[in-house]
């Protein structure tokens, strides 16, 4: 019908236009995401959805997050500001910028590349569209990026500050230079084309909005969106009891000093509706697992956002950041300085930052906080496929465990790690076997792998496969949790066992390969990954008896664990609850 006339400040009071504009930003993000997902060639992007998109205003403020990995998305706002700082006025319509440098461009680890595309209207730069994705390869001494023990960041791959790869719609020579230094340039071309196409669609849609509402009015609405998100976030933060809460979380090691955990330490100060997360007590920077500042930010944001009510979960933007202060001095593992390696980020130490921040919140508002999710477990395999004689990089995250429980809800199986927020998608067996010379023997839930509790953690995975190619490099850089694990809430339990990867050769000899290592999976080797699930919330003795029976019937929980941990006695023949014995068992526990 009639369009509400754009123009003056009184428009800000128009709730209809505000709703409409807000929705439009969210739907543009969804569209971008669809284009990337549907047309990428990169396994990690197309099948695993390891990417995100975003929209920013000319000042680099995040307007709307909607789609993508939390561990990647929080970085966008810092990155666009780095781009603006570097290029200033020298940005033209049709330019495309690429970057991944954690030190000059707020990258995470090098395989996560970010593209930005400026959107102009009436000759003025109004917005930036962003697309960000994990690439198959970024050069460096080994394919795939997830290898521990690199000498410095240059050995991990090509380091790219904000760089113009298209100038006014024309490819710049530096793009060829970049493609010549990575391993799968043809694939990268398709993936970048998909991301650029997505950003151009965003441009078209943004221009439609600008035409309808006018640049100035739209700017007012963006201000209002950011302000109202801040108000809504602060309203909820104000309910958290004031206080100082201290926590710590560790990763297994840094891949060089074996078995020496690296600690992230957090002091949360809640004062009114302001939160300060101070990580100053964390360990100094180490090797490989260092968490660049942008990933530290993203992880803290994830911890806070997941503690808020579900209703505002789609509305986060720059305003959400304003009430959250993060102290992360340079030179520590949560804000490393050049030339520290960062290959495991944002998984390792991003997870620990998230856990430390969330656990700190759990001390204040335990019923709103999820228990720790399973630590990420996914090995990289690099070799040659005898069927095609082509190199392959197999990064499939197929053995990730479950999410932690949250009061009122059991965890979900197979959706970790928390830094990815359940956005990662696993590859089909039928795709993996067609693409890689591995015969998958088993891909199932692991009984008794969920942390016990009134609400149980989501289960972990039992994954087994045989190497049908030649020797393959085995990289366990994006795994963690062989000797460390996350926190529980309100008396819930952690899973009984740790993550474990073993290789059994055709002679029947078995050896364990720990997280953050580089090894070799020989021809014919059987690779087994067994993962712990998420942690539980609340006393397991309080878990609903019928729910425990259901768990046993479905073999999520064994009869033995039901009795020992949940105090529920079940007759193994009739599979019925022995009410009297259960009562005794729970009373005497």
């Amino acid at each position, binding site marked *: 019908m*009639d369009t*509400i*006339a754009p123009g003056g400040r009184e428009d800000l*009071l128009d*709730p*209809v236009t*505000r*709703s*409409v504009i807000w*929705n439009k930003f969210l*739907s543009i993000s969804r*569209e971008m995401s*669809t284009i990337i997902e*549907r*047309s*990428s*060639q990169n396994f990690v992007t*197309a099948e695993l959805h390891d990417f995100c998109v975003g929209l920013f205003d000319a000042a680099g403020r995040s307007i709307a997050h909607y789609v993508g990995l*939390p561990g990647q998305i929080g970085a966008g706002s810092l990155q666009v500001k780095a781009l603006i700082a570097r290029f200033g006025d020298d940005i033209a319509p049709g330019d495309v910028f690429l970057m991944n440098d954690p030190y000059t461009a707020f990258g995470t680890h090098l395989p996560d590349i970010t593209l930005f595309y400026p959107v102009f209207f009436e000759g003025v730069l109004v917005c930036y569209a962003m697309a960000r994705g994990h690439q198959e390869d970024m050069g460096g001494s080994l394919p795939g990026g997830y290898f521990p023990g690199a000498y410095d960041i240059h050995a991990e791959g090509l380091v790219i500050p904000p760089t113009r790869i298209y100038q006014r719609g024309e490819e710049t020579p530096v793009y060829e230079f970049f493609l010549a230094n990575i391993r799968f340039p043809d*694939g990268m*071309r*398709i993936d970048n*084309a*998909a991301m650029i*196409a997505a950003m151009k669609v965003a441009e078209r849609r943004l221009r439609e909005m600008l035409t309808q509402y006018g640049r100035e009015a739209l700017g007012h609405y963006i201000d209002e969106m950011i302000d109202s998100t801040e108000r809504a976030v602060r309203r909820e933060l104000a309910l958290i009891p004031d206080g100082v809460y201290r926590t710590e979380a560790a990763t297994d090691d840094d891949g060089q000093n074996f078995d020496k955990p690296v600690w992230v330490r957090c002091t949360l100060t809640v004062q009114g509706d302001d939160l300060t997360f101070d990580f100053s007590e964390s360990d100094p920077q180490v090797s490989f697992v260092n968490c660049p500042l942008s990933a530290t930010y993203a992880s803290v944001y*994830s911890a806070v956002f*997941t503690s*808020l009510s*579900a*209703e*505002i*979960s789609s*509305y986060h933007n720059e305003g959400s950041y304003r009430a959250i202060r993060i102290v992360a001095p340079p030179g520590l593992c949560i804000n490393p300085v050049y030339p520290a390696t960062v290959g495991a980020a944002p998984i390792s130490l991003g997870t620990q930052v998230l856990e430390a921040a969330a656990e700190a919140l759990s001390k204040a508002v335990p019923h709103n906080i999820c228990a720790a999710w399973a630590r990420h477990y996914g090995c990289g395999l690099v070799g040659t496929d005898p069927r095609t004689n082509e190199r392959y990089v197999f990064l499939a*995250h197929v053995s*990730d465990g479950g999410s932690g429980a*949250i009061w*009122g*809800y059991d965890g*979900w*199986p*197979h*959706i970790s790690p928390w830094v*990815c*927020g*359940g956005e990662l*998608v*696993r590859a*089909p*067996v*039928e*795709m993996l*076997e*067609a693409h890689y010379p591995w*015969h998958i*023997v088993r*891909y199932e*839930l692991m009984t008794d792998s969920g942390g016990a509790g009134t609400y149980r953690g989501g289960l972990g995975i039992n994954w087994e496969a045989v190497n049908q190619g030649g020797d393959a490099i085995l990289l366990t850089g994006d795994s963690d949790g062989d000797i460390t694990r996350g926190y529980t809430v309100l008396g819930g339990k952690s899973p009984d066992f740790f993550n474990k990867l073993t290789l059994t050769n055709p002679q029947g000899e078995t050896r364990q390969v720990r997280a953050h290592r580089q090894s070799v999976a020989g021809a014919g080797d059987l690779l087994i990954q067994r993962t712990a699930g998420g942690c539980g919330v609340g006393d397991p003795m309080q878990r609903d008896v019928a729910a425990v029976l259901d768990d046993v019937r*479905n*073999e*999520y929980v064994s009869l033995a664990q039901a009795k020992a941990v949940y105090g529920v006695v079940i007759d193994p023949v009739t599979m019925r609850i022995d009410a009297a014995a259960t009562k005794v068992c729970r009373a005497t526990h």
Partner: protein
Amino acid sequence: MLRASVDIGGTFTDMVVTEPGGSVQMFKSPSTHGRLSEGVMNCFRKAASARGSSLDALLCQVETIIHGTTATTNALLTRTGVKTGMLTTDGFRDIIELRRGMRAGVSPYNLKVKFPEPLVPRARRIGITERMGPGGGVLTALDEGEVEAAVRRLVDDGCEAIAVCFLYSYINPAHELRAAQIARRIAPDAFVTTSYDTIPSSREFERFNTTVVGAYVGAIFAAYIDKLDDELREAGFGGHLLLIQSNGGIQDRQTAKNNPVTTLLSGPSAGPSVGQYFGGAYSSKIISADMGGTSFEAALIQDNQILLTSNTWLSEQRIAAKMVDVHSIGAGGGSIARFDSMDLLRVGPASAGSRPGPACYGNGGTEATVTDANVLLGYIDPQFFLGGEMQLDVEAARAAMAPIARGMSASQDDAAHAIFEIINESMADALNERCTRRGFDPREFLLVAGGGAGGLHVAAIARKAGIRRVLIPKFASAYCAFGMQLPDFSQDYVRTYTRRMHDADPAAIDALFAEMEREGRAVLTRSGAADENIRFARTADLRYVGQFNEVEVDCPSGPTSPRSLEEIAEAFHIRHDQTFAFSIRKRAVELVYLRVRAIAPTPPISLREIGHDAGSPVRARKADRACYFGRVIGWQQTPVYAGDSLCAGAAIEGPALLEEAGATILVPPGARAEVDRYGNYLIHT
């Protein structure tokens, strides 16, 4: 001979009766819950009396009843399917529970969400020793003893349906088919289905889950359709009862029972046929939209093809079978307006449904709905709702609107108009999303719309989406029932043939096409189609080597040749560019699937032309009514026209209201409506 199509909705049962080369008539009767056929018979009674014949005489003339049903969809949504068991490759029994690790549409910042329980719980999923390799070769033979033991266990456990789901069955179904054979022998009363028969394409989670959904709802569908058939036969019906499939085509009852996944969305999937039918004369790019009480459903038609998708999620279940790409959002007359935690006014997806319904229904609803807003805006005549069958309570609408007005610090009029605007925005966004997902620009489309609530909103929606022309068919209020008259009888087939284009063997491709066409011919002739009427549409799914998703393109009929393969590749590049905004001609292309659709055309219906009289609006004009069009235009006296009195050639400038039996059409200020020779309304927005 008559063809009757029936759409049984929550509130009304709609029927359209056609006579080849003759009349098209529409009837409505309240739905009867419990004995659904009563609502259908009531429509037939109305039809008989309209034709001046007895019910028995009419029923003798009805050769086919075409039915679209939400029975299967509802069983899935309400989790009331049958107890189902699953036989699956040992080592992979959790595939449908692992869900590829997806949270599917849930915000990563929202963790207070219950895990969507699989339709078959783990305890009833049994691993069987067997294994095919990625090329379809047998790696481990099927252990038939295990199959027997597993089926006995499932039967003892009370399972009424068994889904057989093995890896790589889409390339080599031998193990699945054998296991199903054993299962049928041991459990003759159970519904046994295989993933190969359900959807023979790669990706085990998608294929297995689709199969399990089919198994879960299969018995429900069979019971529903057999009961309806029995009741109709008892009442004197002696013809064929045919079904609308989820891909929009028509199939017979037995084929639907064999593969019940094809009955999901049967009902809504008939709507786009209306757009295809009426819109074709105006445009090659059409959006079909149906707005009822609780949902708004939109689909695209391009070059006379209703677009399909294999990417559906329904009730947290992944369904990978090809279905009409109907995008449904919770927007309808019953959609409720509320403020969310960001103080944004939201309309829908929550709905007051038909009970209590909008506040103005006077059944105890207290929250403001879209219908309440439309009443307060003057768009709906409270005395003439559903042709006067129902009186609306304006005071109740006013009371419900008060909190919305307070929350906005606005007048009641502005609050009502805000609801109208916001619901229209949601629907316009849905249209935009439909189009842009496919790489289309909505401004190039014609919008064909119907449904009980569609007429009031569609012109406004079109304006918001930049669409310049809207067509509202005369039969808009029975949109889907009308749509069920139109589709062809069809069956779809698919074979996997993964080859790089330059390695593809034309003879092998032709052999697969021929095999599918033989099957299709057999099924269609069995269902009564004349052999000489059957035709085939061949398509292939292609992708760039290395990609994970395919794009479907048409294949020329006739023998495949290196030259025709080149044409297919060229068509792929073009379609890829249209869909994803880029193509890479240097990159190698590979074939993945070959498909055939076997088609037996439905005889065309002929609409009666209405008389021509450009002056008819003068006679059709009833009393004016005051309507509110927002702050800029305000209240305006708006002429109301009796739709039945308008003739072809009539042109009406907005603002105006056109009252039809089942719906009212709003021509907004500045828009113009024209009546075509069939009584359809073309609105220039």
